């Protein structure tokens, strides 16, 4: 490692190590494929009784562990299927904090986002039930936690009514998605006074709206990437080429456009990728002199396009023609 030129032995070890990693991952893939194949499942559920058909070396313990893994694999396959198709899935987590509310029970919300041809790492929202306080204490099953939950004065008056009300505990939503606003809209806290009439919580709406925002965000990002690709593919001979496009704000709704001659512009995208406004300014390099709006450049760029994707298409067709 320390020597600047690795010895041939080191190189060999390195390559063997990488080979091991590949083989191991191959083994894993094969294992899961075999375990999830229907024939394996049927073999495991009722192993053939006749001695010829019985595979060699299968002891009851091995069979047991195989069944165990098969059932795990089945569950995993089902989960993957749900995650792929439904894109919003839930799961349960145990909060490791010994002082966690509600005995550490946490509901996890997993939101898949499919953009640019692949699944992004899912976003998680983890919710707990801090409003269950009063009811738990009364039930007297304070196993380490129940006794201390009297701090929640809020729901004391109406025990149990808000027992299943959720609050966002942890999440991995990027700050450009207005999670707090959505949570305040769809998962409001119980009213401060018991006589007050508050709104109901709606987890389904919350999840759908949140997913919508996340998907929109990813699609906007993808559109900007497409735009950049289209610009890179543009013919070199083109006069006054666009040099760069970059998202200018957190939500990727505004795009900064830089032309080759130093002009800059802004494209404002709506929530769903429609073009709200485009402005190009005469930069220092422009012939127009001074700073002002350059409508001609904008017309050249946008034309009749209503959506950013149309601009991408225009740019692409420009290269072909």
């Amino acid at each position, binding site marked *: 490692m320390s020597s600047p030129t690795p010895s041939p032995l080191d190189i060999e070890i390195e390559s063997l190590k990488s080979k091991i*990693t590949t083989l*191991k*991952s191959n*083994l*894993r*893939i094969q*294992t*899961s494929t075999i375990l*999830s194949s229907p024939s394996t499942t049927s073999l495991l559920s009722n192993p053939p009784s006749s001695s010829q058909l019985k595979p060699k070396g299968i002891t009851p313990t091995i069979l047991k*562990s195989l069944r165990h*893994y098969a059932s*795990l*694999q089945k569950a*995993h396959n089902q989960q*993957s299927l749900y995650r*792929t198709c439904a894109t919003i899935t839930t799961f349960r987590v145990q*909060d*490791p*904090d*010994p*002082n*966690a*509310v509600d005995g550490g029970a946490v509901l996890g919300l997993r939101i*898949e986002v499919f953009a640019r041809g*692949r*699944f*992004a*790492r*899912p*976003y*998680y929202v*983890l919710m707990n039930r801090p409003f269950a306080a009063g009811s738990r204490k009364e039930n007297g099953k304070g196993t*380490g*936690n129940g*006794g*201390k*939950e009297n*701090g929640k004065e809020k729901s004391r008056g109406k025990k149990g009514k808000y027992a299943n009300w959720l*609050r*966002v*505990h*942890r*999440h*991995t*939503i*990027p*700050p*450009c998605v*207005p999670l*707090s*606003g*959505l*949570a305040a809209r769809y998962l409001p806290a119980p009213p401060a006074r018991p006589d007050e009439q508050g709104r109901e919580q709606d987890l389904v709406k919350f999840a759908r709206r949140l997913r919508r925002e996340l998907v929109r965000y990813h699609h906007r990002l993808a559109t900007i990437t497409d735009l950049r690709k289209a610009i890179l593919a543009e013919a070199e001979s083109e006069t006054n080429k666009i040099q760069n496009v970059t*998202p*200018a*704000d*957190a*939500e*990727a709704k*505004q795009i900064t456009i830089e032309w080759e001659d130093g002009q800059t512009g802004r494209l404002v995208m709506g929530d769903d990728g429609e073009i709200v406004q485009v402005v190009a300014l005469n930069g220092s390099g422009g012939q127009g002199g001074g700073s002002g709006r350059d409508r001609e450049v904008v017309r050249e760029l946008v034309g009749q396009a209503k959506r950013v994707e149309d601009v991408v298409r225009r740019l692409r067709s420009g290269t072909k023609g």
Partner: protein
Amino acid sequence: MAPISIPTTARLPSSLRVDPSNPAVFKILNRLSRASLLTLALDWLDERNLALAAPYLRPPSSSEYDDEEDEDEYADDFNPPLRSLDALQELYTSLQSRKGSKREVIDRIIEGDWRHGLTLYQLAMADIQYLYDHPTSQKWAAYRIMPLKPVSTNDEEEEQQPPEIDQESLVIPRFHPSTFLKNLQAQVPPDVKAHYNFDRHRTLPLSILRIFILDSPYNTSLGLQSGSSSSKGTRTARKSTTTFDTSRTVYIAFPDASPYIYISKPQLLSGSAPTTGTGSSTTAAAKVTGINTTAGEAKSLQHLLLVGIPAALSRPRQRFCLKPTNLATRNLNELLDRRGGANTRQGAAGGGWSIYADEMREKGKGKKGNRETPLDTVLPSPPLSEEENEAEGAGKGNGKGEGNKRAEPPLSLSAKREERERKRRRLVAKARFADTGLVGDGKGVERVDIIIEDEFPSSPSNQHSSSTQPSSSTSSSSSSSSSRDRDRDTERDTPGDRGSSSSSTAEKQKQEEWRPTVKLTFHGSHVFAGIRQLVEAGIIDGEKMPGWMTGEEGVTVGKVREGRIRGNKGSGL
């Protein structure tokens, strides 16, 4: 005499030159290392900066024969000016390769090439260079930009009730540097002059705004109290430089694509300025000027910024305010992680929860990329991989002592138990901290203040279920062993006497009401890594440890009730 100066509300121009003999100039430059100084000088000579950082060059001679005369003029000059930029660039480049003292470079800059004064722009660059060299020199506090409810058009009503935070707004604040600066300028009172300089952080996704504040109404050189004129080298008699001494520098960092901003603690340029009593600083007058030197007034300057910044960020019909997020640290990396932009997800999922946020988690293990995709049918912990995981776990943990132990072939029974215990503790630490709180991750906070307001355990015989009290005593015991653990965290338990002295008699009757104020201060280079080490060493019981000790709340100041941090609750909402 200086020409008539009219107080204006304009900002200090970047091209304004400060007399090089001003001690402040020397102070700013002297903070930098020699290498940084040379890079800085070369940066000044760069084409892009030249307009605002022109060096003093020998005036071009009309003919070759004038050479002799010129030589005479600068004959006794220790740092004679050069003729051209190229020569100057060469000079500084050659200085880079040569060894020498820092003083030599400073002298060269102050008395030689910039003898006609350094511009405010240059000083700003020097300051920012210092910030790069010493990334922990500033203490940053993170603030969240919150949208306000649109106020009614009725002006009277608006004055009566302060605008409320709009909880349900879906607006993400947007930030545009030049507009922001223009608006911020309008917020600064006219008797304060400020110089603004935007800089892009070299490595982190941040824009840094340096605000240099003078309490002078003039935006000419009069404000800097130096009479240097642009004609070569002639200087009028300098007056005292008190104005410059009371100047302050504040940095505001804008992380990319994030609804947070970080504000540094205002710093006095010269430490020698007199300090007055803090009592006077709380008056309203001090709040407005806010430029003097006491701690309280430093706060009021911060207050000024806290008022001014949201106003500058706001636009018609879209108003914002700043909300402190209880996170203050010197570590910008940690801030970006916790209160960062688009690509950081850890903001509200710290500690053990970070497994949900950590994008790179599986990549480190040599598996391909994103294991979380639903298209991957391989089980999360596939069969035939147990032994590998085990080996990994053993090799991964803390280090050297471990390796020695494993090398010894025969293990006694107690050693084996010890080994098992250690492994278990490491697993517990892993469960509670996941991949956060590691010593080398460079994301440490250096101070955490916690106030515990839990009920006092009613009686020693009564088994109290709360684990806050036991754990706090554990942590105090840890300070004795901290030296052993190469752990610089020191912890002080300061039982507050406010509550106890007054209610000590009443406490007998109403035991459950007595809540002593226990203040814990964790102090060290990386507090949560220290706690993690203590968990791994078995000094803190990792299973009973309250959640706030893992740093999952993402705050450095907090109040604990019922074993949980109040208010913040870590949800990041």
